[in-house]
C-alpha cells in the first residue's frame, strides 16, 4: 500500500507557503537586523554584535516600558475576562430568539476600522466629548474631567478592541458544555451558583484560558490605543519599536527590541501552556465526546 500520509499536507501547503514567505522570512530579517550596527551617520552596517541588546538593558528606561506593557496587558486581561465572561454566559444560557442578532453585534466592531474605533473614543472621553459635554450641561461638574490621554483611556481602547475575542472564546467553550451536567449537579444538591462553580466554570476554563492568552499577546503587540488615547507616560513597547523604526529609522535597535518582545512572549506562552495546561484540558474534553 502506498503511503498517503503526505496528502493532508497538500491542503496545508498554500497557508504554509504564505506563512513562510510573509512571516518566517521577515522575522528572520528582523533577527538579522538586530545584530547590525548603526553608524552615527544613520547608515546600517551589517555586523554580528550584541550592542543593540546591551543598549536595551543599559538604561532602565527601556525595560520599564516593557514592564509597564506587561502590567497594562495583565490589567486588560482581567478586565476583558470580567466583562467578557458575563455576555458569553448570557449567550450560553439564553433561549431568546434575538441571540443570533446579539451575537452579530459582538462581531460588528470588526466591520469598522480599528483606527476609527479608537479615534472615536476621543469624541466620547475628550474635554469637549460626549461625557464631559453632558456632565457640564447638567452642571454635575464645573470643568471638564481629564479622562483622555491616560492609562485608563488606553485600557478602555484596548478593552473595546479585545473584548469580542474574549467573548467568543469563552462562548465557544461554554457552548460545548452539556447542559445536563448542570442539571445533574443540581439534582445532586447544588444550587444554581454552586452548579456554576462546580461544573460550568471549570469546564469553560479552556475558553477562558485561550481568551486570556490571546488578549495578553495582542495587548503586548498593540501600539494604536496608547498612541491615540494615551499620554506621554503611557507608551507601550510596540510604540517604542514604532518610534525607533519609523521615527528615527534605527532598524537595528528597533529590531532588537522586537526580538526581545517576541522571545519574551514565546516564553510566556510556553510557560502558560505548561502550567495552565490548555492542551491538557483540550485533550480531556475531546476524549469526552
Amino acid at each position: 500500500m502506498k503511503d498517503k500520509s503526505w496528502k493532508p499536507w497538500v491542503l496545508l501547503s498554500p497557508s504554509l507557503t504564505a506563512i513562510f514567505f510573509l512571516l518566517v522570512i521577515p522575522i528572520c530579517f528582523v533577527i538579522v537586523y538586530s545584530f547590525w550596527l548603526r553608524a552615527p551617520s544613520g547608515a546600517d552596517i551589517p555586523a554580528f554584535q550584541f550592542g543593540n541588546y546591551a543598549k536595551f538593558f543599559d538604561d532602565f528606561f527601556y525595560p520599564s516600558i516593557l514592564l509597564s506593557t506587561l502590567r497594562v496587558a495583565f490589567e486588560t486581561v482581567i478586565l476583558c475576562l470580567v466583562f467578557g465572561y458575563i455576555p458569553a454566559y448570557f449567550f450560553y444560557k439564553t433561549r431568546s430568539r434575538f441571540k443570533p442578532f446579539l451575537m452579530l453585534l459582538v462581531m460588528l466592531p470588526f466591520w469598522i476600522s480599528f483606527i476609527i474605533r479608537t479615534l472615536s473614543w476621543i469624541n466620547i472621553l475628550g474635554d469637549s466629548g460626549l461625557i464631559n459635554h453632558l456632565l457640564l450641561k447638567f452642571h454635575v461638574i464645573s470643568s471638564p474631567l481629564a479622562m483622555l490621554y491616560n492609562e485608563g483611556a488606553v485600557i478602555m481602547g484596548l478593552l473595546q478592541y479585545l473584548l469580542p475575542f474574549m467573548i467568543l472564546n469563552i462562548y465557544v467553550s461554554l457552548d460545548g458544555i452539556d447542559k445536563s451536567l448542570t442539571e445533574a449537579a443540581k439534582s445532586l444538591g447544588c444550587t444554581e451558583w454552586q452548579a456554576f462553580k462546580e461544573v460550568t466554570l471549570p469546564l469553560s476554563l479552556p475558553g477562558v484560558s485561550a481568551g486570556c492568552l490571546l488578549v495578553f499577546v495582542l495587548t503586548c503587540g498593540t501600539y494604536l490605543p496608547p498612541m491615540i488615547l494615551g499620554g506621554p507616560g503611557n507608551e507601550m513597547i510596540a510604540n517604542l519599536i514604532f518610534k525607533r523604526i519609523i521615527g528615527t529609522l534605527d532598524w537595528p535597535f528597533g529590531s532588537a527590541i522586537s526580538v526581545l518582545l517576541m522571545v519574551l512572549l514565546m516564553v510566556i506562552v510556553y510557560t502558560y501552556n505548561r502550567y495552565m495546561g490548555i492542551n491538557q484540558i483540550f485533550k480531556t474534553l475531546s476524549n469526552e465526546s
Partner: protein
Amino acid sequence: MVYRVIIYSGSEDFYARLSWETMVLKQEKDPAFVKFTGIEKRFGKVVAVKKMDLEIPEGSLVTLLGPSGCGKTTLLRMLAGLESPTFGDIHIKGKRINDTPIHKRNLGMIFQNYALFPHKTISDNVAFGLKYRNVAKSVIKQRVENALETVRLPGVGDRMPSQLSGGQQQRIALARAIVIEPDVLLMDEPLSALDENLREDMRREIDNLQQAIGVTTIFVTHDQREALSMSDKVVVMKDGFIQQQGTPEEVYNNSTNHFVADFLGHSNFLNAIVNKKQGDLLSVRLEDESHGLAVPAAAFNKGDKVEMVIRAQKFNLGYRADHVPEQGENVFFGKIVDRSYMGGEVSYFVELDNGLVLHAINFVKRSPYRRGDEVAMTVAPEHCRLLKV
C-alpha cells in the same frame, strides 16, 4: 409513611419471636408515593402534558412509555424540578413539592448521555451528592466504595470518566444517583446511548439493582421491550395523555385502545360490526361478511362499529388444504405474500381473499411455509379483542 405493627400472640416459639422482632416495624408500601394531580405543562402554545393524574407506588419501577413528543420526558423533568408545571400539583411522600427547588428534592437522576462530570474523578463524581449533604469525609469514602461495588465497578475511583466505556459510565451515573439514597430514582432514556447487547445487560442490571435497593423508580423510554421487561407498571403515553396504565401483561394483552395495541408489539386490526352475545364472547360480522368471535374490551350493543385486534404471535398457521373447521375458532384464508426469517421466529404477511393483509409471527419450528403458499390462519376467540373505534 404508614407502619403496620404485626404482633404474634400466644407463641413462645423462638422463631415466632424472632419474626415478631424483625417484622414489628414492617412497612406498608404507600400506593401513591409519587402523585401527579391535574398536572399540565405548556410551552408557549404547545401543550406537552395535559391534565394528567398519575400515582406511583412506593418501591415500584414505573415506565413512562411512548413515542417522542408524548410528554413522558416533560413529566419526568417536572418531577425532577427541571420544569415547573403550568397547572396541577406534584406530591412526593404526601408532601407537595411544586415549589421545592430541585436541589432540595432528594431525587436521583440518570441521563441519556450519562452526564458524568468530565473534569472530576469517578470517586468525586460519586461523592458529589454526599458532599452537598454535609456527610463526613470518612463516611463519604466508605459510601462511595460501597456504591461502586453495588454497580460492580470497584477500584475505578481514581480514573476519569473518559477512561471508562459507555456502559461503565452509565453504571457510575447509577452509583452517583443511588449513593445519596434518593426518594425517587428518575431515568431519562438511560439505555438509548448504548449499543444493542450492552443495553440488554444494563437493563437487567438496573432491574436487579432496583429490586435490591427497592427505590421507587421512574423510567422514561420509547423502547417497548425495555418497558415491558422491567416494569412493575407501564404507563403508555401519547400526545400528553395517558393512554393506558397497568402491569406489562395488562397493557400488552388487554390493550384498551388502538394506539396501545398498535404501539406495543405487532397487531392486526379488522373492522367489524357487533352481532350478538355468545356467553362471554361477542359475535361480530367482519368486512368480508364472515363471522368472528372475540372478547369485548368494553360494553357494546348490536350494530356498534368495533375493531378486532389480533396479535401477530397469536395466529396458528396451517396449509389451507389441510384445514379442518373447528367450532368457535376464527379462521382466515389467504396467500403468503411476504416472509422474513428473524432467527427465533418467522414473520409472514398473508393476503386474505378480500385483499386485506394480515401479519403473523410463528416460531421457526412450526413454520415450513413459503411465499406463495395458501394458508389458513386460525386464532382462538380469547386472543381477539374488540375495541371501540
